[in-house]
């Protein structure tokens, strides 16, 4: 009898603990919406379509309009944040995905199993290195190096028309959009590379042997069998990497140069993302006695969460439809 009671008690304890993540997600969304509500009411739809970051006069008496308390002269427009966040993450994906996939192909097919463990460890090391350390490296070493040796080469040799215009002009000191994108690319490599490697390893040997028996070279087997088999999984992993790049905070905050209120003029220009803005501005926002600056940051956080949630769900949906292998949670460790 007591045994049964124990069994039931254990089960109920597990049940209560297991619901905690669900409750946490609901609570997080609720807190964000609740604290962003005044900012959403006052900033309105215009927040999404213009670029401006004027916190107003913190020292004057706050005034009330539309039932929202705010400092006089306030004007927030988050377009540059949204564009910055998405541009930065897209650069990371455009650079990171091809490199990771090629590396995964070599790791899965050509590296002898003896060394596979070593390279796996290297990938895990990249995934594990704290993002502040990536930021430190990006801000003090990689950024200046690129600005001195690489960016001038690109800026002076790229044709002066259309899309390429963004690659011309002053190259700055290494803090900017492209530097941040490159650092982010390094950070999302483990997710994409390790997932792709596992997926390629799972391709059935019989299909590959069949292709080989037809006389195809290794490269042809890869394109005819392996890559078709794993394409959607790799796509899913890439979208997951995009999600991580969108939400990455510290490294971006240290490498973008944090320029508030305007869109970057070229890819070397300083800019900022939603996450970087929250982490670097929350401190000064606390000085706003009307609390409006903090509420606006909550609105930005809500926006960021919506974007990343949509991207993440899309990635999971994509991979669920085609492959039984679940994606790694988070960083690809």
């Amino acid at each position, binding site marked *: 009898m007591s045994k049964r009671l124990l069994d039931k008690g254990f089960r109920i304890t597990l049940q209560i603990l297991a619901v905690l993540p669900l409750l946490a997600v609901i609570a997080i969304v609720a807190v964000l919406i609740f604290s962003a509500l005044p900012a959403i009411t006052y900033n309105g739809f215009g927040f999404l379509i213009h670029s401006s970051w004027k916190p107003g006069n913190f020292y004057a008496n706050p005034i009330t309009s539309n039932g929202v308390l705010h400092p006089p002269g306030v004007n927030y427009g988050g377009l540059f944040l949204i564009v910055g966040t998405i541009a930065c993450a897209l650069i990371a994906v455009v650079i990171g995905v091809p490199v990771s996939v090629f590396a995964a192909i070599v790791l899965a097919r*050509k590296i002898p199993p003896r060394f596979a463990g070593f390279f796996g460890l290297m990938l895990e090391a990249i995934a594990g290195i*704290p993002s*502040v*350390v990536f930021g430190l490296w990006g801000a003090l070493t990689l950024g200046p190096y690129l600005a001195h040796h690489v960016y001038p080469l690109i800026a002076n040799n790229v044709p002066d028309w259309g899309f390429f215009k963004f690659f011309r002009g002053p190259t700055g000191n290494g803090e900017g959009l492209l530097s941040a994108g490159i650092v982010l690319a390094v950070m999302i490599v483990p997710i994409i590379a390790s997932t792709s490697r596992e997926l390629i390893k799972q391709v059935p040997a019989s299909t590959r042997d069949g292709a080989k028996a037809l006389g195809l070279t290794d490269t042809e087997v890869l394109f005819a069998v392996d890559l078709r088999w794993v394409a959607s999984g790799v796509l899913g992993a890439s979208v997951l990497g995009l999600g991580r790049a969108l939400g990455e905070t510290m490294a971006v905050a240290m490498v973008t140069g944090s320029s508030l209120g305007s869109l970057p003029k070229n890819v070397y220009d300083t800019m900022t993302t939603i996450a970087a803005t929250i982490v670097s501005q929350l401190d000064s926002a606390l000085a706003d006695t009307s609390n409006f600056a903090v509420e606006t940051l909550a609105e930005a956080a809500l926006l960021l969460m919506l974007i990343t949630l949509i991207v993440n769900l899309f990635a999971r949906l994509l991979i669920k439809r085609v492959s039984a292998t679940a994606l790694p949670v988070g960083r690809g460790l």
Partner: protein
Amino acid sequence: MSIAIANKTVKQTSRAKSLLLWRKITNVGFWSFSLIGLVLIMTPLLWLLYDVIKSAAPNWHFSVLFAQTKGVGGGISNAIVGTLVIILGVGIFGTLVGVSTGIYIAEYARQRVSSILKLASETLAGIPSIVLGYVGYAALVVGLHLGFSLGAALVVLTLMVLPYIAKSTESALARVPTSYREAAFALGMTKTEALLKIILKPALGQIITGIIIALAIALGETAPLLYTAGWSAFYPKLSFSHSPVGYLTYVVWTYYNQPFKSARALSFDSALVLVVMVLFLIIFAKFVNAIFKRTMYEEVQTMSRSISKRVSKRL
């Protein structure tokens, strides 16, 4: 006639030969190109490690590890102890909740419930860390009046690592053969007994590995801690509210662009200590995994022995 055919064959074979040569060249070309990809992802890691060591080495004194921060100089012992306290707390709470969630999803929940819980856990993993930090600040530090404190930091960081631990627990349990469960139930064990005595054992290695990796992730987080743990130049007090805690990532983030040489040195030292700790945890996780894999065979044997002992007892 026959000469014409022979000519044609010669032409064809030579064309086939050149085609084959071309295919071989593309093959070699492709693999060397892919190898460049591998080199490209390894270079930044080595460069970064070299850079971290090179920045910290010239001014490195071991006394840094044992002195507290004073203004923009001194040491980082308070941050090291704070980080360890935070990691320990996250380890306890994260394991408790994460492993329970994983077990519940894998062993108890019905299809629909488990897919909802999995979705919740994946969603939680996808929430950017700064958003978690902001919510922690708004809800715990201000809302519940905890102030900058260990309690607020632990809640936020635990939520961050929960999904990792839940996921590794769940996938470890999914690998345990169904026959183990059937054997346990056939002996008349309750589900709790079956779980604790039979099912969890072969999964233990992977679960522990997952926890260590989650701790390595928690170790390197900055954004969720900045506005929950705050910063303190003193050793942490063992109180959950109203006493800020110092931690290593704060030192890296705050001191790296200060105009004082001593501040920058502290930042580099902290980065080095962080990287060493993370790499140690990752290698330790590999080590634990290997040990459990090796003992798995013996484990299975002792398990089958204990099962047969139980069977003979009941008979």
